[in-house]
């Protein structure tokens, strides 16, 4: 008998800005986790929030976007370098992975991500096809 788990489960409590949309309304959901710089000061946080808002605005205008929900992760979490830092999680519903891919080639995305990248210590992006359990 082998355990299913390769590693311990990672879990976050995320306080969203708005109620969670019905995630199954989109064929595919992008889950993006943005790690802020470790020990980020107020200026760095403001800079991130502003850049994130620009990216969110671009996403909402994107073709194939179904919904966007985002919020702060409670407490500190480990980033990809193993450092404890704060983070923001976003759920983006897309018509397809291809629609998301197409968006990433647009100038609005390229501009927004260029602005956002210097304000984070890393990001993780996944696609998932979700089913509703209850």
């Amino acid at each position: 008998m082998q355990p299913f788990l390769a590693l311990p489960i990672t879990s976050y409590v995320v306080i969203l800005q708005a109620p969670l949309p019905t995630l199954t309304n989109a064929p595919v959901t992008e889950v993006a986790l943005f790690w802020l710089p470790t020990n980020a000061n107020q200026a760095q946080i403001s800079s991130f929030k502003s850049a994130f808002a620009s990216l969110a605005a671009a996403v909402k205008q994107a073709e194939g976007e179904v919904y966007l929900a985002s919020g702060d992760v409670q407490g500190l979490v480990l980033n990809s370098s193993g450092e404890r830092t704060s983070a923001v999680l976003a759920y983006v519903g897309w018509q397809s992975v291809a629609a998301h891919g197409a968006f990433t080639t647009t100038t609005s995305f390229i501009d927004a991500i260029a602005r956002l990248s210097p304000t984070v210590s890393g990001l993780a992006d996944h696609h998932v096809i979700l089913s509703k359990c209850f």
Partner: protein
Amino acid sequence: MIASTTPHSSCNFVYPYKYQVAWPLGSLPIQFVSATNLSSFPTPHCILPKRHLIVMIYRMLLVILTLGFAVSYCASAVVKGPSPPRPATLYASVPLNDSIPIAFTAKNKEWSRISAAVLKCSGLTELYYGRQLETSNLDLIIGQYRNSEPTLHPNSHRQLINDLQLSHLRVLPLPANLPSYLPCNHF
């Protein structure tokens, strides 16, 4: 142009001069200070009544504006109601063992049933579950908590994750009786 003088009640000079301008359809009273009387322009105590008027109007405007803002604010608060609490969600990533891919598909359904049973007890009202497309060995769980702020107590949250991990370990063999696997008062 006919000049008429109207002495101010509290002043010792003639102020203001009231002129009646001849107008084609009658006469239009205009008040202004005659250039010839500039030297006797009101002394401070005489200006006071006019300033009083300005101050009174200014204060009235302030009161009206303040009341206006207050009324509109209250009205909008009544219409909108209190701002809803921000919803709390659970996000969990479950890294799966690559070495059991064949058993996984069938067993995974059972695991998701167990997970659902565990998570439902924790106060989640919605639960989404799916496989990450890029690596296929990471399950993602997204849930919406019934209660918003304050969110699930950290101890309960920790317990929830522990139980999820235990349920993962218990998938092989399957628990005999899922409904009794974890009673909701467990938390």
